[in-house]
């Protein structure tokens, strides 16, 4: 499958790879250059492969309060957004997603690879609720991120859109028919995500490029989100782990509304257990990658779930799932291709506004 921007990617020199059945650009020459462009200037990502689902109807709010671990009642006004995990009855994570409150209900943006699973789950869970769950497959999604993103978007958008954007605070959104503009993102930089019809998205992409916004591919998207401490479904989260093991406890709200998985999470809290996701930074040359064991005191205490070379920090970074996080003691080692390399366990995020902001955990 191809997004409506496929020709634009080829024109920009995109190196196309298969991503869950979609032909997507991994980079346009150098993922490191694209990463740096987003941190220092502005980059544009085509994320149209992601899944947009509109939830409308009388019971939309009640339904989502039951479905999601975060509480959509927090979206007290139209034009607000939040991030949530969607759990099964065991508290395992089915997906992570953004929820945007619109004038007619809610718009969910879920992952590409989990599309079919999520749609089935949603339709099943919606039984008994007066809601309509409808995928919007014909819309494109652009993310424009970086210190110059807001300025350049202001120039590239129509006056009506630019005005709507200028009114938004972070985590706010504006709808216009099927279109949506939101001050959300996956990079840790200021910027916006725009859901638009295909031809409008292509035209916007061209205008942004003409203004010097750099096309950025999936490679840069991954290193940017990792630096920003943001999880990737399939790597850092899956159905075998609960939010507390994924650095997502902050997204879970227990207030007696009984969401799917709540009982399991409460039982997990009762039982104690300190399986956690932490940041890891290399102190020597080398790159952390998913699957590298973490060793402390001669024992394996965890494993890297996501790893990459951080262009902002010029060193390897990663997330590690650690058992016994409360008893974690330095020094930590990562086993990389048979060698034990010293690493630091650190807080997340690694980088804020382009600068290191992590602190050692032990």
């Amino acid at each position, binding site marked *: 499958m191809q997004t409506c921007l496929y020709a634009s990617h080829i024109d920009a020199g995109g190196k196309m790879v298969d991503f869950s059945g979609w032909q997507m650009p991994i*980079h346009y020459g150098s*993922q490191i250059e694209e990463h740096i462009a987003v941190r220092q200037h502005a980059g544009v990502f085509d994320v149209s492969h992601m899944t947009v689902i509109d939830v409308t109807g009388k019971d939309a709010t009640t339904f989502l309060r039951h479905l999601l671990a975060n509480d959509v009642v927090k979206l007290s006004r139209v034009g607000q957004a939040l991030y949530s995990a969607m759990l099964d009855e065991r508290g395992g994570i089915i997906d992570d997603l953004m929820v945007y409150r619109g004038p007619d209900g809610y718009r969910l943006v879920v992952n590409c690879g989990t599309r079919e699973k999520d749609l089935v789950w949603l339709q099943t869970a919606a039984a008994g609720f007066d809601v309509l769950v409808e995928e919007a497959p014909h819309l494109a999604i652009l993310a424009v991120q970086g210190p110059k993103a807001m300025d350049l978007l202001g120039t590239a958008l129509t006056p009506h859109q630019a005005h709507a954007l200028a009114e938004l605070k972070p985590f706010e959104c504006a709808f216009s028919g099927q279109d949506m503009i939101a001050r959300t993102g996956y990079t840790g930089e200021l910027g916006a995500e725009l859901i638009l019809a295909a031809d409008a998205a292509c035209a916007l992409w061209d205008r942004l490029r003409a203004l010097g916004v750099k096309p950025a591919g999936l490679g840069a998207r991954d*290193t940017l989100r990792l630096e920003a401490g943001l999880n990737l479904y399939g790597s850092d989260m899956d159905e075998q782990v609960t939010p507390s093991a994924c650095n997502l406890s902050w997204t879970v709200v227990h207030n007696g509304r009984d969401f799917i998985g709540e009982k399991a999470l409460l039982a997990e809290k009762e039982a104690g257990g300190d399986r956690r996701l932490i940041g890891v930074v290399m102190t020597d040359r080398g790159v952390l990658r998913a699957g590298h064991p973490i060793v402390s005191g001669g024992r394996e205490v965890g494993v890297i779930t996501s790893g990459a070379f951080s262009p902002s920090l010029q060193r390897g970074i990663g997330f590690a799932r650690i058992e016994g996080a409360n008893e974690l003691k330095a020094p930590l080692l990562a086993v990389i291709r048979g060698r034990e390399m010293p690493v630091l366990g650190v807080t997340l995020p690694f980088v804020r506004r382009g600068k290191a902001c992590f602190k050692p955990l032990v």
Partner: protein
Amino acid sequence: MAEVRDDVRYLATHEWVKLEADGSVVVGISDHAQDALGDVVFVELPEIGTSFVQGSEMAVVESVKAASDIYAPVSGVVVACNSALEDAPETVNDSPYDAGWFVRLTPDDPSSIESLLSPDAYQALCDDETR
């Protein structure tokens, strides 16, 4: 299309080898290889004076995608390494056949380079891989 230089020989593992006038051989990775690897972030080079048997692991190139071993194309002794790659690993991507060279060896048997892949044979191999 990746560049295949016609004044060097190749390994199926995408190293290039150049026989110099002084009898030494210089080793690097091909344009096809650097393109497949993506941005190079670290290069691990051997100590000068180390000897290698043909086909053994001689160096490591770590890119954003993965770490890859670089194999000794001929048996020989390391006489020089491109230490500039320590601070500028991206040189491997920018100039794989020139500034991005890895290692210079004194070969045990200079004629052994002739049994390596010719530029045409290497091009054919790359075409097959790309298909």
